[in-house]
């Protein structure tokens, strides 16, 4: 009898849990792109000025001197390594900026030349990440008269292990 009750309870519990998961494996932040702090990868000193109002308006976040200056800095800091040579593709770099122009929460996506998900050489990813973390010409969004936090992204194109001017 006791076993039967436990079995029924288990089935009931399974049913309830299934109902709560609207679609299996799907989880969404409040807004696509909201990026939670990851203690393993993120700088603990990076803080939003107001975490309740972080803009998803890429056009409002600009680099000093524009895309030209950004690319020039990337090219200038990039050091080619023969281990990178076999990689051609794209790094999509997402990041957050706070109202004091500090950046953090960097996330990378890597795609091959056909825009399929791919895995680049580890040293290349680490090198790209260290360069983008060193960029300090970003400007926070100024929106409706307020200095705000925001999220942005940019693309880095690589052919045969070398960053390309786009």
């Amino acid at each position, binding site marked *: 009898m006791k076993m039967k009750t436990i079995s029924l309870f288990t089935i009931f519990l399974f049913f309830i849990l299934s109902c709560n998961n609207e679609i299996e494996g799907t989880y969404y932040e409040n807004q696509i792109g909201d990026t939670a702090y990851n203690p393993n990868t993120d700088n603990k000193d990076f803080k939003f000025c107001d975490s309740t109002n972080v803009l998803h308006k890429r056009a409002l976040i600009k680099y000093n001197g524009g895309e030209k200056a950004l690319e020039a800095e990337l090219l200038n800091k990039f050091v080619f390594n023969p281990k990178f040579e076999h990689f051609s593709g794209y790094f999509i770099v997402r990041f957050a900026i706070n109202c004091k122009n500090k950046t953090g929460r960097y996330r990378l996506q890597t795609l091959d030349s056909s*825009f399929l998900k791919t895995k680049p050489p580890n040293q290349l990813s680490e090198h790209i990440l260290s360069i983008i973390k060193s960029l300090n010409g970003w400007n926070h969004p100024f929106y409706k008269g307020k200095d705000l936090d925001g999220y942005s992204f940019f693309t880095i194109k690589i052919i045969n292990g070398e960053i390309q001017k786009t």
Partner: protein
Amino acid sequence: MKTTILILSFFIFCSKSFSQVNCYIYPENSRERKACELSDEALKYKQGSKESQLLFDKAITLGPKFHWAYYEKSVPYFKRGFLIEGLKLLNEAVKLKPLDYLWYRAYWYWQYKNNELCIKDLETYYAMPKAYIQFTPGGEKDMRIILGLAYAKTGNYTKGIETILNCLNSYKTEDDFGFADYHSLGVLYVKNKQYDKAIKALKKQIIINKDLADTYYYLGIAYKEKLDLKEAKKQFKNALLKFQDTNKFININAGFKVYKSDILEAIEKLE
């Protein structure tokens, strides 16, 4: 062009106020109808919000052949740097209805700097018998101009020029020209070292829209290459003045953008 902009503004206004699809075209109680209604519901929430994405998921589960839900769900991913997620969804919409979504995928390929894939999708699209005129989501450029610019980005200036000329020749009146179309044509002529044609196209651009600083810069380059240094200097200075003008026109999706530093450098080299 003004008429086009007005019509586009009207559509953008409508799309913000109402649904973009008419769910009544699907039979009552059909999976597509239910998916359509759920997608409509999703649009009532902020784009990219958890609420809207969950409703699109429901729509896709109920009506997996309802292409529009995949498309709408993909948009915030593209806008926020989640290319892999965006493409996964939009590819489904393209598979279901290539005529409606190929050009849109091409636009994002262009945005994420993959000119080869942009060209591939647009060539496929324009080869379709029912292909019709498409503009960038902001409405500022015919997608054939983007195709021309994408060819140029891969170094094929001749094909880029041919594509833009074909586009401009297809318009019935000059009112249909975009605010920077002749600028794009002129830039490609400069890149292709056809300086006389470049000057002609860029001067025409100034008649259509005189507020683009970049046009004067490229005009200056063309004159410089023709060794008319006096006129080159004049145009570079015009570029600088326009650049500092608060009413200057911003050429979105320019492809070959000019920066203040480029203009200053050009002036300095001449002095």
